[in-house]
């Protein structure tokens, strides 16, 4: 009975008792949800354009953040560091296109997946080799990002604390998503990108080579990774332990579908919020730390009912 009580009654009582705390939890879930969504977004970009399940997306987040911080620590002015980091992500995109995508085109999914895991190994080694393996502090203030927090009274005697960096993160995320949406819908390259997702031939007829498209999407998702890395780094340390968040972003994809941008955003929010609430209200019952798998379980249960994801299209098997 205790168990049933612990699952079905106590958490809700707790929520009702302290609504301000619930709001606080929801807010934090929302912010990490946004960051998950950003990682998933980078992932979706690549999958849509090239069918690659990019396991290295998480590592790209860390690698971008590490490069930025590392360059700054080596005495590079912050603006220049930012520009150089972007350049590094550009070079990475070109290299990936030239040395991974091009030779492996038309290989089965699993081979491309393995290649991105190989890329993961390489980037981890490279990042640590160049900038050292010890955790670093994100250069939040130097980048002009706000710190500190605002306390907003909530209800009778409650209080909700909003970290300014979190607010900035939310704003930047929204800006990036909007920018990407505009890019896809309003520019020639963007439209070609959408075309390529449906039909490689169609993209060629727009006059853009597949190679260019791959380089562009990898670069775009590299930029998304940089933004994510900055924000996530600001909330914790910059180290390869962050890699794990990339794996955490996978259930987001399951929920949203591999190819859907709105799916990535909605999925990110569901996972971010669900995970926080689960951890805070149900976690203690199971000994804590359930964050590590809860999202997966949510995704798994979800998949059983909709194998093609939230926004994926129903597949009719033809024989």
């Amino acid at each position, binding site marked *: 009975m205790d168990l049933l009580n612990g699952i079905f009654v106590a958490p809700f009582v707790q929520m009702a008792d302290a609504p301000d705390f619930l709001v606080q939890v929801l807010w934090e879930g929302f912010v990490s949800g946004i960051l998950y969504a950003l990682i998933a977004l980078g992932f979706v970009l690549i999958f849509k354009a090239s069918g690659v399940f990019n396991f290295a997306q998480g590592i790209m987040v860390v690698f971008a953040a590490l490069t930025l911080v590392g360059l700054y620590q080596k005495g590079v002015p912050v603006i220049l560091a930012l520009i150089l980091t972007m350049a590094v992500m550009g070079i990475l995109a070109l290299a990936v296109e030239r040395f991974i995508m091009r030779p492996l085109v038309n290989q089965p999914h699993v081979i491309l997946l393995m290649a991105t895991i190989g890329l993961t190994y390489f980037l981890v080694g490279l990042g640590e080799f160049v900038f050292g393996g010890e955790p670093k502090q994100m250069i939040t203030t130097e980048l002009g990002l706000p710190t500190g927090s605002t306390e907003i009274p909530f209800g009778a005697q409650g209080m909700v604390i909003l970290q300014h960096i979190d607010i900035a993160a939310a704003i930047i995320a929204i800006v990036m998503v909007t920018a990407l949406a505009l890019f896809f819908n309003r520019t020639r390259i963007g439209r070609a990108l959408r075309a390529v997702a449906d039909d490689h031939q169609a993209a060629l007829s727009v006059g853009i080579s597949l190679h260019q498209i791959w380089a562009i999407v990898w670069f775009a998702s590299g930029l998304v990774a940089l933004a994510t890395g900055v924000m996530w780094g600001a909330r914790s340390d910059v180290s390869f332990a962050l890699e794990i968040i990339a794996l955490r972003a996978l259930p987001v994809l399951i929920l949203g579908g591999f190819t859907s941008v709105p799916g990535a955003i909605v999925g990110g929010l569901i996972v971010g919020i669900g995970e926080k609430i689960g951890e805070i209200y149900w976690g203690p019952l199971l000994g804590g730390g359930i964050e590590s798998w809860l999202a997966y379980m949510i995704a798994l249960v979800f998949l059983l009912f909709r194998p093609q994801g939230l926004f994926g299209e*129903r597949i*009719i*098997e033809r*024989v």
Partner: protein
Amino acid sequence: MSDAGAREIMLDIENVSLSFGGVKAITDISFDIRKGEVRAIIGPNGAGKTSMLNVINGVYRPQKGTITFKGRIRRSIQPYQAAQSGIARTFQNVALFKGMSTLDNIMSGRSLRMHRNFFWQLIHVGPARDEEIAHRRKVEEIIDFLEIQHIRKVPVGKLPYGLQKRVELGRALAMEPELLLLDEPMAGMNLEEKEDMSRFILDVNHEFGTTIALIEHDMGVVMDLSDRVVVLDYGRKIADGTPDQVKSDRAVIDAYLGVARQEAR
């Protein structure tokens, strides 16, 4: 065989309708297949022929209608149950197991008839091996029948298309089916390959007494091989009868002329 009309009905399809999310693939179709006959299903592209086969062997579940096979009435079954009840099938686009050899592909058709359990399989001596060998012999008879000895151990992916089709027929034969569904067995073949395939289909029908339902576009082949023909167009049945009856049917001529006219355009 001219006496097809007198034989017992093996498969009876009554008022079957099938649609995918509002798109109608089959509308209220009824026809039967009699024991021992070669029954052709013809019609222009998109007439619902392949969907019909998919309904018969349980890949699709029709929204309406019943199917009676060997006296048992059902709306739909699982594909493996269809296999168990004696229905085998080949595919329009060869659906062989690409990673396996010709021998293993045909051997896979014996799956239903092999029963040695996991632990015998594990040690692979005694009963499991005896079973494997007994079925190998059966498979070799099929290989001999289809004259594909020279490609016995070749991975099917390396074979030319015509031979792949032949292997696929072999795989279906290995099931020793009572009803064999052939989806365009001669698509993409040259004249010589078509003649070979026709001979094999007739031989299967004569030597093993297997009832055959086939979809085919080559009218010459259909007229030569089949006892009775059912004609579909836009998911509806427009004619049913002997090849000669069908050939002179007004609706059939219109349907095919329509196709010809469209293609000419």
